[in-house]
């Protein structure tokens, strides 16, 4: 991040690419859940408990997974319990990979969101804090008071190995790489 232009070139955006290697389900564990908003916390715990100790305690893994599942339950499946959320996942000490699929219509406003995020980051890098007021949160007609699209901003930061939708945009694959311990010698 030597200067602002390189910073901009590092902007993460949501991509659509069904053929991304992140959608490769080989060797992944699998669980499916009804779209019950009350149980999101529980479903998240079920998934996270297979992660090794070193990655689940020291970071936001659980919170991030919970946000993605929340999106699928709420925006994808409209909290209809008969609709299922399917999750494929795999963890080890250096990575977390997750594919979350819902039965909804797909993330229609993906391009709008990317555009919004691009502008927001541009304003941030210019340190234009007045302009930023208009870009605090992303809202659509379906948004309720609890939505700010902010979870997605954080998700893009967190899932540093990519955050990719399938063509139908009802499944998202993501990868987090964990830095290997920095203090060890040799």
């Amino acid at each position, binding site marked *: 991040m030597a200067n602002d232009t390189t910073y901009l070139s590092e902007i993460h955006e949501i991509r659509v690419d069904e053929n991304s290697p992140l959608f490769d389900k080989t060797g992944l*564990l699998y669980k499916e859940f009804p779209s019950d908003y009350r*149980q999101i*916390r529980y479903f998240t*715990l079920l998934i996270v408990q*297979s992660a090794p100790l070193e990655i689940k305690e020291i970071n936001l893994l659980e919170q991030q997974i919970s946000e993605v599942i929340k999106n699928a339950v709420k925006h994808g499946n409209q909290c209809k319990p008969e609709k299922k959320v399917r999750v494929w996942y795999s963890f080890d000490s250096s990575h977390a990979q997750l594919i979350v699929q819902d039965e909804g219509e797909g993330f229609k406003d993906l391009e709008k969101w990317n555009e919004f995020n691009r502008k927001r980051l541009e304003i941030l890098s210019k340190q234009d804090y007045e302009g930023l007021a208009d870009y605090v949160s992303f809202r659509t007609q379906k948004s309720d008071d609890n939505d700010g699209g902010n979870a997605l901003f954080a998700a893009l930061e967190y899932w540093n190995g990519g955050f990719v939708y399938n063509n139908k945009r009802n499944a998202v694959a993501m990868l987090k790489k964990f830095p290997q311990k920095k*203090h*060890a*010698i040799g």
Partner: protein
Amino acid sequence: MTVSSFTLMLESAWPARLLGLAIAASLFAYLRRKDTEGQFSLYLSALAFLLVRDTVRALLPLGGLMLVSDILHYCFALFIFMYPYKASRFVLFPALILNLALASLFAADRALGFLGSLPERVVALALPVNAVLIGLAAFLRRKEGGGRQIPGMIWPYAAALLAAYGASVVVLGYASPVIERLAVPLSYAWLVMAALAALELHDRQLLSAVAYYEGSIDSLYNVLLGTGSALKGEFTTEELLKSMNEAIAAETGADGGVIFLVDEFDDLIVCKSYVGSYPPPVTLPESLPRKQNRVETYMKHIQFRLGEGIFGDVAKTGRNVFIPDVAKDPRIAINGEEDFLRISSFMAAPLMVGDKIIGLVSVIRKDPANPFEEADFDRLKLLANFGTLSVSSFFSYLEARERSGLEQSADIAADIQRSIIPKKVPQFPGLGLGAFSLPARGVSGDYFDVIQTRPDRVVCIVGDVAGKGVSAALIMVMIRAILHLVTNTNKDIATVLNWVNKGITGKIDLDHYATLAVIAADTRTGEVEYANAAHQPVLVFRRSTGAVETLDLKSLPIGVERATEYGRKALRLAPGDVVVMYTDGIVEAMNEQGKQYGRKGLSQVVEKNRDLAAKEIAAKIKGDLAAFVGSVRQHDDQTVVVLKMSQ
């Protein structure tokens, strides 16, 4: 060459001179590897020149050769003694030109004779003049630090020797045997002296290197002692960095020091330690009052993006920075003239582990009359290197401690789990039971129990607690306690689940969810009640049809909603029917090909072993599952409870 001229050569002064020159040359050649200033080749050239001169002279007694070559010999001396003193150079070059011109003129005259025989002894006056010039230049410039070089050490002797030789040539002429046998070899003595001086210098350098390393080792010892005692005390990163910072500032004679660490997540470097007085080398914000304590507080918490400013640059590139005089360097901001605002000398070095930069250390001095020197800079780099090792091992230790804490908590949870799961399941005349539970490292979520509530009624529970470490284990203990308390009731089994749920939900501020499947069986009649809290379906093998049915009830896990009303199902088991309760870890067990064991794998084992007792069926399931997964690490506990009506 004839035999007689060879004999003549041997009898001449030539071999002795050659020997003298060769000894000096071999000394220089020996020291050449340690020649840091690149001068030795000059001495070696002079020696080689004289060697050639004497050899030529021994073979061809040319008239005038001695004088011409001696003038050139003195030119070497002029250059060697005057070149190191910058101010002497404007005399040196004209002198060299004059000498060369004189030598050429003399040689030309000897060859062609156009001037009618220039008197040799007059021309030879140039030699003592040169020697005086050398002496004068060296005398005038002797304070210029030449003492650490060969010319500075030997000039009085060399000048005197060369002057004496020149004078004797003028007085006696080259024809004199005194010159031939004594004076010429003596004129070489200055080169031998130079060689000895070189040896002496080399010795001194060695000694000062030893002194330097002794000093470095002392400094290192002090830094390591400081960081070491930090570990004995508070045991915090701040303490450790403070000791390291203090030791480095002391060992470099600095007025103040700071240590920054890289924050990986935000690409920032953050000031973590501040000792002594360290005025800011960066521009202060306009709004900050120029008060000593405000400025110090500002510095103590300052942070930069990687690559930003002089600190950010060190942390990004890993380059050392040495600025003895900050007034001459635009990278250092001058904030004012007050003592707490002004620095005079600045150094910074990265803290590196392998090729990874974990931070940086910087020290400053304030007194412009006493700036940092190269030796201080070397010391800083050395201490930064070794200090980092301490910091790094400390971090590794903290990490290990944290991890061992987590592992300890996981071990405690596993102990609790082990202690509350039944070691042995009871058997009844009409109903056989079998069970196993295999824990996965760091999970400890599976729970099963068999509770006999009446002589002919047994309640089997299989559950899975979602959560972490000890808190999950505590939930398991609570669930078990409630179950043991309430299963002995006349109410139906769904009510038991309702009570468990009410007992757990919203009571304590922990992650606490659990799935539970409950089967209450009449051991005589085979009447069975089933209730479920979001647990895996139960498999029922019917002996009469040979088919496996699944028994399931959609519901919420324990811990989600306090008001949940659980449902129940009733069925009757015929003799030989088998019920299998299990957890996620069984059906989701994965083999090397990424295939799950599934309900199918489970059903097949039951069908195949329909004739065996419940206990043996459980053992068969365990064996089959182990064969299926092979060496693949399992992510979840695996638990099975088997009930079988006697045939």
